[in-house]
């Protein structure tokens, strides 16, 4: 009869073989030419920790001290794009309470509850711009008058300029939710004239 030590080693070796096979299987599955959602980032690889996110140098000492995004995002509402976090809901539900002033944690933003509806030329639904959500994060002077002239009809906005990083594209498509989320802006169906 073998000693317990040898037996344990055999058990561990078997475990190792099984793990290797499972890992290899996952690796092979990812190379499958007919894999489902071939070009999409699988959800398991979203919000990667700094050492494996591709823009941090894993050999830098600081990289390992940084907070992994998944840790910070654990309790926050999910969305389908960007950081995969619904930041508007997170701040509305006070799941995050970002400061409005560097030193005073009790300073409150000046929130303006005013929706601007922009009729769009194409077939997409009209755009509803909520000042309320934006003034929770920003000051009036961040947008007016440099990016948007505060006057009805004074601003020419096109999807082309937004994609080039102008107008709404100064934030949307960089930090605020990306332009792939069409209907978060184009949200008011056009009134169809039956005549």
């Amino acid at each position, binding site marked *: 009869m073998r000693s*317990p*030590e040898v*037996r*344990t*080693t055999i058990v*561990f070796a078997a475990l*190792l073989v099984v*793990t*290797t096979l499972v*890992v290899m299987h*996952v*690796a092979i599955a*990812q190379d499958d030419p007919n894999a489902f959602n071939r070009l999409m*980032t699988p959800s398991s*690889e*979203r919000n*990667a*920790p*700094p050492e*494996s*996110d*591709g*823009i*941090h*140098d894993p050999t*830098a000492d*600081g*990289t390992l001290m*940084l907070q992994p*995004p998944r840790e*910070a995002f654990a309790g926050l509402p999910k969305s389908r*794009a*960007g*950081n995969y*976090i619904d*930041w508007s809901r997170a701040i509305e539900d006070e799941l*995050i309470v*970002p*400061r*409005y*002033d*560097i*030193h005073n944690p009790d300073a409150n*933003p000046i929130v303006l509850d005013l929706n601007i509806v922009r009729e769009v030329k194409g077939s997409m639904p009209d755009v509803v711009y909520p000042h309320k959500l934006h003034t929770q*994060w*920003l*000051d009036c002077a*961040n947008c007016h008058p440099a990016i948007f002239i505060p006057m009805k009809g004074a601003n020419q906005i096109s999807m082309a300029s*937004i*994609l*080039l*990083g102008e107008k709404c*594209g*100064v*934030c949307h*498509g*960089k*930090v605020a939710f*990306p*332009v792939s989320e069409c209907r978060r802006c184009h949200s008011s169906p056009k009134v169809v004239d039956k005549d």
Partner: protein
Amino acid sequence: MKYRVSSFTAAVFVGALLIVTNMLPNSAEAEYGDVVLNEYSEDAGMRPVVFPHWFHRIRFRCKVCHGDLGFAFEAGGNDIDMLKIIDGQYCGACHNGDVAWSIENCELCHSGMPDTPTQVHHSTVQQLVKKAREDETDAQTEDSE
């Protein structure tokens, strides 16, 4: 029946497991809105800076940096150097050992992958505009040859 595990066997197992898991293809991605700043860093012998927007927006509203501190809405558009930061401008308004950790932690910011140019990671400008401009430049170089 009880198995007794010697520390040597356990160490071999864990080590082998680490080697195997590291063989997995690594196509992980940085966060949307992560800014790489490399205007001066690598010329000065430091790694590029990575600024995580997601981390900062949990703690501060956009207005604090983009209003009170004067950060323009453009990666590389602020002409920031260490002198200004030590002087309490830009990052230095918080990273002074008072509001946030101080500048002696060089590698917490200067932790970017070498040779990464200034950019906003995953931005439409990075993915569409910059790529289109590169293609255009390539085409022009081919024409002139």
